[in-house]
């Protein structure tokens, strides 16, 4: 790991909550590290395991998925389905040897700018501790 390595985090945020929280954190001039690249989705229920794997395969050092608190889903129950999907997904990912701290999930409402900043720091720091991602990264095929 080189001295100036910075983790790259791909974040999948629900449009109705965490995306707003990130916006609010910005407008409120809360300082936080700039290691995440945000992808805005209509709901955490829209997050397919394929998205998370694709991020890791393309070389992301960490993935962060965040949506509305249970009960607050704009579509009533999208995050309830997502919760089960993520639980099984994260378990299987760890079972296959990916470090638990690579992939993070959170519930952050659009009013929780401070929680957003805290979780962002936590996510980035835990990935930084792990170092660059080496697992599930697709490298150039070998010449046969």
């Amino acid at each position, binding site marked *: 790991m080189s001295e100036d390595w910075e983790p790259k985090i791909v974040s999948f945020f629900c449009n109705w909550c965490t995306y707003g929280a990130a916006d609010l954190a910005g407008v409120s001039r809360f300082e936080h590290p700039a290691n995440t690249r945000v992808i805005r989705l209509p709901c955490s229920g829209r997050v397919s395991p394929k998205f998370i794997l694709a991020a890791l395969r393309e070389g992301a050092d960490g993935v962060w998925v965040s949506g509305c608190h249970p009960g607050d889903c704009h579509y009533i129950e999208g995050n*309830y*389905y997502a919760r089960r999907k*993520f639980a*099984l997904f*994260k378990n299987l990912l760890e*079972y*296959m*040897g990916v470090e638990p701290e690579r992939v993070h999930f959170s519930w952050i409402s659009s009013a929780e700018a401070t929680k957003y900043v805290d979780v962002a720091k936590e996510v980035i720091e835990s990935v930084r501790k792990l170092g660059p991602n080496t697992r599930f990264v*697709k490298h150039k*095929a070998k010449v046969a």
Partner: protein
Amino acid sequence: MLGYTDKIKEISERLLKEGKVDMVIGFKKGTMPMMNEPCVIKKAEDAGKLVWDSNCGINLANYLTDRKEKIGIIAKGCDSRNIATHIVENKIRRDQLVIIGVPCKGMIDRHKIASMSETEILSVTDAGDEIIVKAEDSEKTLKKAEVLQKNCAVCTHRNPVIYDELVADLVEEQKDADRYADVREIEAMSAEEKWKYFDDLLAPCIRCYACRNACPLCYCPTCFVDESRPQWVGKSTDPMDTRTFHFLRAYHCAGRCTDCGSCERACPAGINIRVLTKKLEKDCFESYGWEAGLTTEDRPPLDTYKLNDPEDFIK
């Protein structure tokens, strides 16, 4: 399971003769030891081709997908659970089916038996609780319990869960089977060891998709491996592509897999791929109290939720 064959023939012949079904899906004798071939019987006089022994490990529910006919289908415990899953997922209607239930005592592991013999095996025959293996210059009698397919050894649903006819009395279910010993062993490893374990496990994979295609759950019109916009996984045997394929294949079976073992049986490279689907089976059981295919009423676990589902991994 001696004597099952006669009863299967009798029931099938009757159903076809009485016009209750258009076809019966079952097994016919294969051309190789330890292989029976799934087949379809459409005429009563052909029912005599049907057989049943310890080599009927392929899951016949796989052959029901989107069929329109009235079908008689031979179903052991796991097949019947996948039929139930098919009904829940609208891949077949219950009223199209006459399910000929087979109380099962387990299928034998063809990879294992082949590797136990020095020379080529000429024939393998059932003899009650024993299996007689004839090779070029030897004849061995094995205890069936010791050469069962790994999933059969820990099976707790040997009897069909739904059926219209039965070929024999129900068998006693296995009570004290430790279903997840191998999963726990992997769970106890460090991340590093786990990664290495699956590297080794998946190295012989040739991406033939036999595991996917042998699975009754895999019926998507376009599989994710064939999607190209975007392309989620490469087509080569690059270890990361192979791993991505197996990860997503297993995940797609989450809460639906009945551990029928067809995938593992079909694998030409003999890869123990059930360790992936079983992890999901275990999690569904432990977190949501769910076992797939036991009813045709309940929604599968990823199609429903509870307000208080576990979420300690979410910040």
